Structure formats: structure tokens, C-alpha cells
């Protein structure tokens, strides 16, 4: 069964069309990386899934039921923008209040469990307002995890986190998917991080789904390239540009040749022109570059 199935979703804000026939399928148990530029319709879609805003048209189903179904709604955890905590209350009290809102019978044990899951056991007595950004994001995840949700919707949960915070967040998301069978929809602009955990991707643009694929499909569609360094990079680049259609210099100072069949062929070609290759490797483009390429193609 699919956790989320959206067909022809539209949403208008006055004259502005935020979503124009978006389709989306999230399989159960997936970590679905929801990617798109600012204003592409990610947050609007997520808010519709969470029942916070009403679609203008289309169909939204969660676990085969209409998204407005009270029973299915009770099993959705959410972190959109801010966790919705009361700043003057402690982490513990905020979670206990959320547990009360969800009518969780064994609230204390449940709160202890989610605090452990988000590695916040030691910070339960801290006031929410005194917590760091990373801690607040984790508290938000803990709030969303209360009541054993079957679907977690997280909007930019890793924004502003340091490297350690991102690692912890990654581990938490993998943990809730693997050990608790939870489906996670996570939007982020930090594609390198998303690539490490996502099992499925949805790339949205202009209120429409541009592409949906699994991590394996992404891997298969990511092109390989040859990256090399020489002592005369400018001449190397101009020489290779005459022979190959796509030659670029990357941020790390390597020249990338995307359509080379064989690295040996490049080395030989450069050698014949008096250039010695000091370093050469074969690599694959990541999600970020794939996404940028896809966006360029669309323009």
C-alpha cells in the first residue's frame, strides 16, 4: 500500500497557482526526499498532506483513505516550520502536553521513549527557549513521533544544523523508518544530506512533479565522469573541449569530462599534445548535480 497517493493536486492562493496538477506517490516505509526550488510547491503540498490547508482540486489519499479521515490524521506526525512548543515550558512538559493532546494513555513512558530516540534524555528539564536550534529540531521530531505515527512529514528539518546535528537527524530518520515502520516525507535544500538517507525522491517544480524515482533509479541515471588534474589546466580544458561535448571545471579544481568512454583515451590525447595528467579518477554525479542538471534541462 502507498502511504501517500496524490493525483492532480491543485491549489490556488487568489490568482496565484501554487500547485498545478501535482501527482505524488510515496510507498509505505520510504524516506521520501521532497526536492524543489523555493516556491515550487513543496510546503504547500506538505501542508495539504497534514490537513492544514485545503486543496483547490485533486485527490489526496493517505494509506488508501481520504486525507481528511480523522483516524488516519491521528497517525500523522509533523514538523513544519516550528515545533509548536511553548517557550517557557520545559522540554518534558511540552512533550507531556502534546501527549495529552493526543490522548496517549501511557504518556510518561512514551515521552521517555521519544526523548531517547532523539537523543535528548539529558535535556528533558531544559526550558524550550534555552535549547539550541539543533535541539529544538530534535524536540520537534520527538513531538511528531508521539503517538506512534505511521507517517512523518518534515519540512526542512536539517536547515541550520551543524554537521553533528545533521548526522544525529539522519540517524533518527533512518531509525524511525527501519525500527518503527514509519514513512517519512522530508523536504530539504541540503541535497547531499538527503542523498544519504532517502530511498525515494520527488522533484517538484512550478507546482508540478517533475520526476519521481527510487534511490536505485537515481543511481542508475547519474552519469559517470572522468575528473583529472594537470599542470596546465587552461590548455587542458581547451584541448578537451575540442574533443568532448561537455567539459567543466569543478569547485575542487578538477576538470570533468562527462562523455568520455575511456579515461585512457583522454590521457593519450593529452599526452600526444604534450600534457601530463597528474591525477585522474572516475566518479558519478550526486543528487545535487543531478537536480541542477534536471532544472537546467527544464528551462
Amino acid at each position, binding site marked *: *500500500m502507498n502511504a501517500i497517493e496524490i493525483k492532480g493536486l491543485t491549489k490556488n492562493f487568489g490568482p496565484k497557482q501554487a500547485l498545478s496538477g501535482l501527482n505524488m506517490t510515496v510507498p*509505505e*516505509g520510504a524516506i521520501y526526499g521532497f526536492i524543489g526550488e523555493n516556491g515550487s510547491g513543496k510546503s504547500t503540498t506538505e*501542508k495539504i498532506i*497534514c*490537513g*492544514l*490547508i*485545503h486543496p483547490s482540486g485533486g485527490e489526496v489519499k493517505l*494509506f488508501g*483513505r481520504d486525507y*481528511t*479521515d*480523522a*483516524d*488516519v*490524521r*491521528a*497517525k*500523522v*506526525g*509533523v514538523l*513544519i*516550520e*516550528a*515545533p*509548536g*512548543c*511553548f*517557550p517557557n*515550558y520545559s522540554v518534558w512538559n511540552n512533550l507531556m*502536553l*502534546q501527549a*495529552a*493532546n*493526543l*490522548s496517549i494513555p501511557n504518556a510518561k513512558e512514551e515521552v521517555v521513549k521519544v526523548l531517547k530516540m532523539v537523543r535528548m534524555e539529558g535535556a528533558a528539564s531544559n526550558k524550550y527557549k534555552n535549547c539550541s536550534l539543533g535541539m529544538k529540531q530534535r524536540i520537534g521530531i520527538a*513531538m511528531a513521533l508521539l*503517538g506512534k505515527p*505511521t507517517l512523518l*512529514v518534515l519540512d526542512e528539518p536539517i536547515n541550520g544544523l551543524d554537521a553533528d546535528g545533521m548526522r544525529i537527524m539522519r540517524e533518527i530518520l533512518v531509525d524511525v523508518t*527501519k*525500527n*518503527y*515502520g514509519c514513512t517519512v516525507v522530508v523536504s530539504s535544500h541540503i541535497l547531499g544530506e538527503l542523498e544519504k538517507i532517502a530511498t525515494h525522491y520527488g522533484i517538484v517544480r512550478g507546482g508540478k512533479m517533475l520526476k519521481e524515482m527510487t534511490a536505485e533509479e537515481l543511481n542508475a541515471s547519474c552519469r559517470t565522469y572522468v575528473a583529472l588534474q594537470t599542470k596546465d589546466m587552461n590548455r587542458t580544458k581547451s584541448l578537451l573541449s575540442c574533443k568532448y561535448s561537455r567539459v567543466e571545471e569543478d569547485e575542487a579544481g578538477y576538470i570533468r569530462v562527462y562523455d568520455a568512454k575511456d579515461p585512457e583515451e583522454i590521457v593519450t590525447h593529452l599526452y600526444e599534445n604534450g600534457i601530463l595528467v597528474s591525477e585522474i579518477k572516475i566518479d558519478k554525479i550526486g543528487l545535487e548535480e543531478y537536480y541542477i542538471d534536471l532544472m537546467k534541462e527544464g528551462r
Partner: protein
Amino acid sequence: MTRELKFESPSFIQRLKGMLGVDFYRLFHTPMFYIFLAIAAIIPAMILGMTSIENAEGIVEPLYTNTWQIIAADTPLYVVNSISEYANMNMVFIFGGIMVSIFIGHDYKSGYVKQLFTTHAKKQDYMISKSLVGAFSMACMCITYLLGGVVAGLLVGASMEVNVGSLIFAVLGKIVMSLGWASLYTLLNIIFRRFFGISIASSFFFGTGILIIGAAAVIGNNSALNIFLYGSSVYACLSSNIVTLLVCIVCSVAWAIIYNVIGTHILSKCDVY
């Protein structure tokens, strides 16, 4: 790991119990509540002890000669002729309106409603919970207002003469009206949820009863005005009886239901940002 999916939402009673628990916890843990209780106690004391009026002979005498005038008017006067007929326990409903506005405004500002409405598909829970908590806080304010008035009356040596039965019915009537007022303020704050200033201003505007006072100026002291919240609140006066209390109960509950139904409809149809 896969698990069998079981979708089951809590019952209405469970949901309401949970939400009321949260709202009452918040109410008792916010300094604002105690500040408003103190204000409700201080205001009658200040009015009773510090207000005076110049009579026809030019002699300055206290505006209130009887302690219980600060609690309710002698008769149901919708047309206001002097400040002493207006300034009584009904003022609590103005303070209550401001408190409900701050309480609900914080729900939206903190993002609490996003978390809440994601899991709570049925919006009537929110309306009912806020109305009940608002009504409770206003009822508490009525009590501190009563205590403040009595203490001030004793201190300034004002007369304590009153028909005790009528006084009890008047106070109970006003306390009962808290439910209707709280539901009105909850609705106003739902309508103006994106504009905190307008929420407070509208609560203040309706709380003063200016619309009923205006209507009374045109149609006179007409008992038909009792169908409105301010009308029934004025009706609970020092000549009250069991009928007064029944009128207050019917009016308050009927408006509470109407405002809750409208509020629930608005919440169900409008987007949450």
C-alpha cells in the same frame, strides 16, 4: 521492519479531555491569568473607593453608596444614564475578552495549532476547549471581582444592605454568562486569527456591550434585549430571581452553541498558515 497498520482516533470525550487538560495546564501556568484575576479584584475596589460625584447642591459625595452596586445594577437598565449603572461586574467580560485573545493569539503565533490540527481533524474540540477554559477564567475573575468589591465596601464603609437571594442569582447569572462571552471571544479570535491587534480590539468592542447600549438608546429598556449576551448580563441585576438565572443559562448556552458551530465551520473551511 513492517507492522500492521491500525488506524483509530481517540473518542470525542478522550480528545476533549486531553485538550482541556492542556489548556487548563497552560491557564494555571501563565502569569497572565493571575494578573487578570488581580485586575478583576482591584478594579471594583478602586471604583468603589475613589469615585465621587457632585450632586445638585454642589456637594461631592461617593458615586456608590451601596457595596453591591459595584456588583450589579439595581434594575436591568440597558440605557446607560450614569457611569454607576454601567461600571459593575460586566466589566469582567471585557478583561476576559482580552485574555482569550492573548491565549488564542499565542496558539497561532507559536505554531501550536499546526501541530494540533494535523492530528485533530475535528475542529470542534478546539472551539469547545477554548470556550470552556475562557469561561472558567472569566468565572474566576467574577469571583475575585466580587471579593475585591466586598473588601473595598467594608474598607470604605459603604452600605451592605441587599436582598441576599437576588444578589446570589445576579452573581450566578453573570458567572453563567461567562460561557457565552468566552465562546464569542473564541469565535472572534478565530475570525481575526491572523491579525492579533484586531482580535483584541474586536473583543474589547463587543465586551463593552456598546451595540446593545446603542440599540437600547433607540428602542428603550426593552426586555427583548435579553436575547443578547450583554442584555442578559445586564438582566442579572440586584432584583434578580430564578427566572433571571434561567434566562442567563438559556442565553449563554444558546449563544455558546451558535458561536461554536460557526467557529468550527470557519476552522474546517479555512487554511492554517
